């Protein structure tokens, strides 16, 4: 859907959303000698974003996420089809072509089983998942008096997003990080660590909370649950298929007279797919996870209209993650994909930070995220 030409709401007079008033002078991010070398634009007093392309960023991201979800589901169903074919090979009359060999009732059943099992398991995970995640992280309800500022910031962001106020929780750890859980945008929870509240300015805290509100508003946890369930299914079925192929499962009806070639072909195909599927599925899952992070960043900019604070917050979180890195607690490890920055992204064996995100990273690299936020403003 292309927007009509010449429709530019941000060019109607000065700016329909000018809103940076005198009360929002959050202190600037402390200068960091290491980063001074990089091209950090000089902080401008009272910066105003009049042209933001977060809507475009959000649209493109939705498309990509949907494509990945669909691709993964089809992939799982294809695997199911192959296994079904293998378990109950079709009867192929003499001289039939390849299409006849590929059509299989067993295959159709296999594909359907994958789809239905995925649906059922997802439903189960969706109803219990967020409570479990909060429990693992050790999150507790935030006190409305002592943590007044956090409550205020969360409510402000809920107003900006037009959502009811989510539950506010605090995790008592010094590692600065945050995550959101919730099945529906209306019933979400935002959890931040004590370390995050202590280290960030009000505006930066607001940017982080906006990022999490973005996850809620975009229904990310739903996406991620469905996808991780599908990945789990694919991993399990692929393991089964490897065993079956190894121990020669499946009934060999008429393999000597007809369909022998097809059977050999499918067996080979099944072996290859069964070995590669888990890796491919996980790579897709992480690709989606990275997409959702970019989307939440874009949404945060949309909610706060303050990309500077988001960049500042990401930089501080990045530094802290570099400091804790591999000694992150087990709970952080288990929930790797949920956090706003990856808690495990510390210096590796070589002692150098990873500057690029690989195929198996749950988060894009901070540098990439900052570059994209800059491109939006």
């Amino acid at each position, binding site marked *: 859907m292309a927007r009509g030409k010449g429709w530019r709401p941000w060019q109607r007079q000065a700016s329909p959303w000018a809103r940076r008033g005198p*009360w929002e002078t959050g202190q600037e991010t402390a200068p960091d000698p290491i980063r001074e070398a990089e091209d950090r634009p000089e902080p401008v007093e009272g910066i105003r974003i009049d042209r933001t392309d977060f809507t475009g960023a959000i649209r493109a991201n939705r498309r990509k996420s949907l494509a990945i979800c669909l691709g993964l589901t089809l992939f799982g169903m294809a695997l199911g089809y192959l296994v079904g074919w293998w378990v109950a090979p079709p009867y192929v009359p003499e001289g039939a072509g390849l299409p006849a060999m590929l059509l299989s009732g067993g295959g159709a059943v296999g594909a359907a089983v994958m789809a239905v099992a995925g649906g059922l398991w997802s439903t189960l995970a969706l109803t219990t998942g967020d409570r479990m995640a909060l429990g693992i992280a050790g999150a507790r309800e935030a006190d409305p008096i002592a943590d007044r500022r956090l409550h205020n910031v969360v409510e402000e962001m809920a107003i900006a997003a037009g959502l009811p106020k989510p539950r506010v929780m605090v995790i008592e750890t010094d590692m600065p990080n945050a995550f959101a859980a919730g099945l529906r945008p209306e019933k979400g929870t935002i959890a931040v660590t004590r370390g995050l509240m202590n280290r960030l300015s009000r505006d930066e805290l607001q940017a982080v909370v906006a990022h999490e509100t973005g996850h809620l508003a975009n229904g990310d946890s739903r996406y991620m649950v469905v996808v991780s369930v599908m990945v789990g299914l694919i991993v399990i079925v692929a393991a089964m298929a490897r065993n079956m192929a190894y121990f020669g499962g499946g009934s060999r009806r008429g393999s000597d007279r007809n369909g022998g070639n097809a059977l050999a072909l499918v067996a080979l195909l099944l072996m290859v797919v069964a070995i590669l599927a888990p890796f491919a599925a996980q790579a897709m899952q992480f690709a989606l996870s990275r997409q959702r992070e970019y989307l939440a960043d874009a949404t945060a900019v949309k909610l706060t209209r303050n990309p500077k604070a988001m960049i500042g917050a990401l930089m501080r979180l990045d530094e802290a993650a570099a400091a804790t890195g591999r000694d992150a607690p087990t709970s952080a490890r288990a929930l790797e994909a949920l956090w706003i920055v990856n808690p495990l992204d510390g210096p590796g064996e070589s002692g150098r930070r990873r500057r690029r995100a690989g195929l198996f990273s749950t988060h894009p690299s901070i540098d990439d995220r900052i570059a994209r936020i800059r491109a939006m403003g």
Partner: protein
Amino acid sequence: MEIWIILGIVVLVALYAIATYNGLVGRRNGVRNAFAQISVQLKRRHDLVPNLVAAVRDAMAFERETLEAVVAARGKAVAATQRAERGGSAADRAQALAAERELGAGLGRLLAVVEAYPEIRSGTHVSELTEELRSTENRIAFARQHYNDSIQSYNDRVQMFPSNLIAGMFGFRTEEFFQVDAAETAVPTVSLR
């Protein structure tokens, strides 16, 4: 055979029309709700001002006029809002908006003053109140922003093809964005005598 195909197409078009109409209604209600949300936050600000003034009055003998301006602006804003709500004309509404603007500017100045004097700022009661006030100012700003965001998504629907056909048929009109004039976005000055 053909009759079924034609019937199928008709049903599909009808379903699309219903879904689009409902989407438009939902978005228009969203716009109205967002507007109501702004006045909720403005009320919150009215309720907060007396507490804040009481908290800083003694410490701010030297900034009398700033304080008095805030109190006066609040009185005007409350009165104007009540007039506007009791069946106000467009002029009443404009007056209420202007009064709120004045109050916002006054509070901005007051906040800046409080920030500038550490001995005032350090009182726990005062710092709590300034946090509340800052939050209120933010809420008002974000409520307005959300109002504009929902107007944008509603206007998109009204103007984009093909939903604009349905919108035209049932008389959905585009809404105007909420505008802020320069006076409100100006940064207040603090005199440090």
